[in-house]
């Protein structure tokens, strides 16, 4: 019985959150071509969620990664996917292509508003 009450209230929470209007997330598009990122860095405001759409335009697989931010995405050649970033504190966040460690990687610069 207690489980049913718990599940029902959980469902209500989810539903009420789901019907609340939300603006679409700001989206940043980047490409990885055999380890080379384009653009090599983006600037985003602090404290906002946003989305990064990554497309692997190279001929070899790529792994978009930043371990402390828990981003780890393997992309085959020609594949596109996205990750959602949580609100960040001002600073610089470095990403790498795990399969091309000789390249400089990618950076998100978060500026205070």
């Amino acid at each position: 019985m207690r489980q049913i009450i718990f599940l029902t209230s959980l469902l209500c929470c989810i539903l009420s959150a789901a019907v609340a209007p939300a603006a679409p997330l700001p989206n940043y598009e980047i490409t990885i071509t055999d380890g080379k990122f384009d653009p090599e860095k983006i600037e985003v405001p602090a404290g906002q969620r946003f989305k990064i759409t990554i497309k692997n335009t190279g001929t070899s697989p790529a792994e978009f990664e930043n371990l402390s931010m828990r981003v780890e995405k393997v992309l085959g050649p020609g594949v596109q996917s996205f990750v959602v970033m949580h609100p960040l504190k001002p600073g610089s966040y470095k990403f790498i292509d795990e399969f091309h460690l000789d390249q400089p990687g990618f950076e998100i610069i978060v500026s205070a508003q």
Partner: protein
Amino acid sequence: MWPSFFIVWRESVEALLIIGILYAWAKREQNTHQLNKIWLGGLLGLLLAGALALAILYAGSWYAGSGGEWFLTAMMLVASLLILQMVIWMQRHGRTMKRDLEQAAAAKVAKGSGFGLMLLAALAVGREGSETVVFLAGTIQQAASLSAFIIGAVLGLAGAIITFLLLQAFSHMVPWQWFFRLSAIILLLLGGALLVAASDKVAGQLASWEEIPEWLIYIIYEPLWDSSWLLVDARGSWAGLIGYHAAPSLSQYLPLALYWLCAGLFFIRDGSRMGRKQTQPD
């Protein structure tokens, strides 16, 4: 040469530790049925790794999308729970197994664990193996010197095999009780890390949901503490292998805490039962 060496060795370490320990356990018990199942599981794992590598290369949008994410999540969850089950099973049967095995009825009990062992070996090899295959396939096209690349990969494999053999030798050097305790803890640490990785995948999937409620964001992202002054998150570090995160959130460490609580409870319960058994006169 070093990147390919490093990748092959690093990706094999986790699978090797898991399989090496299970193998040493089965070998000590002289349970050939389990030994065969572990080898078979390893082979199936290689097939799984190959299949996943093909999925990355040829069904990349499935793999990079939610289909692949959920598949990997399921793999890690099953592996982590299997480790817990194996350790508990071993705790219950390990000490009396050799004696019991002489009785036909107990042999059936040992057989029951065969499928779990096989599946765990397969998942351990399959998970990290797929990325190794893809990395090697990707790098081989652009390696400056092909021979250095191949040498690196072969050395990496050799290093992995040596690690495996050392583990086998070590298992015979120390008393069985100590080896069992130590290896059970190592397995549980790896299993806990798998659970953290699985909940990270789930969190990543939930985070991509546009209308995610605030409290869920809090659970997924709000760090409980920050120990990055002590040790940062880095790939391939031992800390990362056992599920360490410098700034863990509730969604990462709550499942881990429950996992260890389960393991601890089983150990305490079985320990006290075992103690009672020994003090009772037959």
